[in-house]
């Protein structure tokens, strides 16, 4: 069998398992079959995809199945780009399935989750493999609808149904945009196979329209501002292993769709294509992380932070477009590699963080971080893994998040070679936004980790938490290990991604693994280099030597006592700093304008006996200015049109008659 056949068989088997799981219903066997089967199949397909990405198995392949449109068939194609994304999808899928072997036990209605979980995984695999518009969109819809079903699986919890509704609307909108984009690419002949689209390139206004539709379609799934509104509602509503897949993996499938359409199918880019991508990417990073800093719900924090990271990926993609249009293949390859590397990294640490959030939720029953605290004492291994994920997502060395952001910064520093003036002004601004968002992300995860895992328990549930089960802990620690290993040995990942970047932009970075000491050197050593393994060794060495010297030559005694707190400790855990108070300085500095944050203080006069009040509110200007008017006009139109429902038969007949006359008139005038 060729690799492509194995991959298709794997996706088909995932899809085929779903009815079997439905038949088994609520029994524990169904859980084992779902997650065990998904683990095996994702592990297998992920391994095959990795082998073909590394060139050890045949890297390309084509298959046509007699399904779908009769004159096109269902076409599937494997190349380096799809292989890279298949690795991300199936790594995420395999780890999530392993985690769910333990976590799924807590599900109250597993029959609402398990079949859709399998279909969701199969849909994501098929999107990445599809090579004609019809099967691409079918797979895309399978992915969307299955994830929608997972979002509303716990439909009795407040807010979940609304989240599902908003998600369904945005998903339909995105699919419609992609449908139109493919329609434009296919042209009037209806050439829906990707090969045929590549053969005759779109140009001029059509290409611009395709770009806009791709941004709308893929961007709404990935969570680009201002199309991100569904994401912080829907991702937290699903069970945690599904949230991890939606945030860590499904947004990456959307990134794949964008790369496939804009870099591959739409033809050679003009320089200005990068403008909207860079602007939206920059805005997305800062808006996402600022919103994340303001949230109280642990999973919503993580969902907004996904929005931020998608912005970072799109900044890399925008730079790649600009460099490619300017005929700078080395710089384009650097930007593309940075974007793909961040795709991989984000899938790893965001899954880790969502798994951690799920473990915390199962242990305490709480997602509100204001009611957690002190969990490092009770869940030490979860805390350790979550700390690793927090460091990685804050782009701190020596973990993996730093490497991809470092590569993106290096790509930004290449940009004076661009000719266009608009880019000369825009790229430094985007760099500043990205620097700002990296610092804000660190603040965000200091806040999350500090409030949830450190301090004293803020509720009885947090005080009585127990460490999570073995499956969950293994999945958490495995992902933390991936974050560390990829962070210290990034050269291997960059080399593995090189064919994928080459498929997208036509250039590749120099081989990294052959560099001395396993450094990474994107352009030249005199320009920039980074060596994760040495940095880790230096940190570990100096910390170890410092501790050893002090313990040897000074003192090693320790005494436990009550907290000092300037001599006036208060035993109530309510006197601790809360998440809201932690974020208050940043809210005052940044969010007053960007998020319309307001603080209302109502202080009674001396002698008055009523209680004083302090109220902090934040709004979402995007919802207010963009979505609220749309919802309002849709409501208005629906109300007006509602009258048409209660007319007499004569009026209906005359309406039909006049409509017919009108259409015939239009036809007559048209020709």
């Amino acid at each position, binding site marked *: 069998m060729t690799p492509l056949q194995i991959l298709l068989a794997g996706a088909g088997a995932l899809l085929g398992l779903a009815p079997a799981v439905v038949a088994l219903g609520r029994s524990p066997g169904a859980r084992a079959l779902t997650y065990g089967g998904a683990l095996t199949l994702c592990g297998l397909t992920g391994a095959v995809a990795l082998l073909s990405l590394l060139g050890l198995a045949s890297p390309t392949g084509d298959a046509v199945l007699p399904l779908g449109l009769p004159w096109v068939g269902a076409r599937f194609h494997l190349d380096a780009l799809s292989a890279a994304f298949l690795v991300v999808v199936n790594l995420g899928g395999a780890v999530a399935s392993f985690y769910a072997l333990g976590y799924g036990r807590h599900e109250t209605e597993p029959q609402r989750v398990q079949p859709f979980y399998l279909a969701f995984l199969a849909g994501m695999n098929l999107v990445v493999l599809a090579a004609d518009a019809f099967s691409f969109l079918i797979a895309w819809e399978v992915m969307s609808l299955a994830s929608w079903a997972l979002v509303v699986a716990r439909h009795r919890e407040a807010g979940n149904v609304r989240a599902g509704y908003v998600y369904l609307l945005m998903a339909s909108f995105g699919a419609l945009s992609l449908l139109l984009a493919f329609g434009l690419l296919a042209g009037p002949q209806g050439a829906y196979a990707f090969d045929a689209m590549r053969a005759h390139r779109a140009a001029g206004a059509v290409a611009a329209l395709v770009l806009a539709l791709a941004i709308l379609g893929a961007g709404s799934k990935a969570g680009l501002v201002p199309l991100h509104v569904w994401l912080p509602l829907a991702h937290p509503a699903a069970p945690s292993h599904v949230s991890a897949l939606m945030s860590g993996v499904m947004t990456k499938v959307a990134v794949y769709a964008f790369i496939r359409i804009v870099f591959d199918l739409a033809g050679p880019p003009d320089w200005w294509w990068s403008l909207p991508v860079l602007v939206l990417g920059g805005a997305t990073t800062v808006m996402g992380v600022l919103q994340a800093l303001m949230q109280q719900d642990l999973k919503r924090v993580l969902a907004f932070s996904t929005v931020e990271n998608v912005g970072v990926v799109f900044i890399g993609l925008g730079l790649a477009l600009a460099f490619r249009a300017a005929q700078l293949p080395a710089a384009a390859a650097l930007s593309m590699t940075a974007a793909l590397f961040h795709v991989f990294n984000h899938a790893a640490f965001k899954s880790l963080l969502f798994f951690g959030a799920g473990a915390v939720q199962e242990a305490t029953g709480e997602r509100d971080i204001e009611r957690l605290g002190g969990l490092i004492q009770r869940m030490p291994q979860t805390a350790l893994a979550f700390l690793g994920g927090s460091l990685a997502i804050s782009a701190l060395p020596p973990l993996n998040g730093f490497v991809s952001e470092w590569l993106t910064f290096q790509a930004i520093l290449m940009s004076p070679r661009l000719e266009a003036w608009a880019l000369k*002004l825009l790229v430094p601004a985007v760099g500043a936004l990205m620097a700002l968002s990296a610092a804000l992300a660190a603040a965000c995860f200091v806040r999350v*980790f500090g409030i949830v895992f450190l301090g004293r328990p803020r509720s009885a549930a947090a005080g009585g938490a127990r460490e999570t089960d073995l499956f969950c802990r293994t999945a958490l620690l495995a992902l933390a290990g991936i974050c560390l290993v990829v962070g210290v040995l990034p050269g291997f990942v960059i080399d593995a991604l090189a064919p994928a970047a080459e498929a997208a932009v036509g250039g590749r970075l120099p081989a990294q693994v052959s560099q001395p000491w396993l450094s990474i050197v994107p352009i030249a050593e005199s320009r920039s280099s980074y060596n994760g393994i040495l940095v880790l060794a230096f940190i570990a060495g100096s910390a170890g030597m410092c501790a050893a010297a002090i313990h040897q030559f000074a003192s090693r005694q320790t005494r436990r006592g009550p907290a000092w707190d300037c001599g006036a400790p208060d035993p109530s855990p309510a006197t601790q700093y809360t998440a809201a108070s932690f974020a208050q300085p940043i809210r005052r500095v940044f969010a007053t304008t960007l998020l319309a944050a307001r603080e209302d203080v109502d202080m009674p006069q001396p002698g008055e006996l009523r209680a004083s009040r302090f109220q902090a509110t934040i709004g979402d200007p995007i919802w207010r200015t963009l979505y609220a008017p749309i919802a309002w006009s849709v409501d208005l139109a629906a109300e007006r049109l509602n009258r048409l429902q209660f007319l007499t038969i004569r009026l209906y007949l005359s309406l039909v008659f006049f409509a017919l006359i009108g259409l015939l008139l239009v036809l007559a005038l048209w020709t």
Partner: protein
Amino acid sequence: MRKEVVLAHNASWLFRVAPYLIFAGTWVAAALVPTFATGLMFSWSADLIAIIALLGTARFFLALAGMDIGTSFGGIGASREVMIATLAEPALLMIVFSLALLAGSTQLSTIAGYMLSSNVGLRVTLALSLFSLIMVAIAENARIPVDNPATHLELTMVHEAMVLEYSARHLAVIELASFLKLLLYVSLIACVFAPWGLAPVGAGAAAHLLGIATYAGKLAVAGVLLALFETAIAKMRVFRAPAFLGAAFMMGILGVLLLFVSRGGLR
């Protein structure tokens, strides 16, 4: 030296490990900054962006350590520290961008070598970067007017509030790390904006001795200037600090933009 550590009852392992990690992060970052000679042995293992990020790692652990015991002082310190960092770090990165665009490299040794060479000239960007870097250095090292390193029991404190629960060897290591950070910033400013006397790669012993002497001189000058500045100015309100650092950030962006717009001399 022989004092025992007094730990709060609910202190976690993170609280005990953090001082050493903070020290190690700062130490590695400081070791990558040229002091009296360019061409450090492991200069290629991390560039200027990585040095800043290493300081970020140290700060991450410091802020977490402040929140570990669950006292309000620790929380207030951590909260203010990250607020200051969210403006100082991007400002610093903008300075790095300016220098990297000029020198065509983010390696600190290469930048210092470029600044030593004769083709630098006077540039507006460099002046903006210098001002911005000094402002960031003041904020990052918790000096007046942003924070007061000598104060205690004051609602205005930032750094001291975070380390309030530490004692004995842990406190010593953290204080050592913060002194080291000050040294790092002084060395950074000296090697980029006053690189005179730095011994180039492969220079003889005399050049290195000269380098050490000038480095000591630069440190002395910086110490005197810092002391003069601190006696001449009062500490500002916490919420004035964002304006102070925002100015540094804006100067950094302006410097980078000027470089992008003026085409000469870029590599």
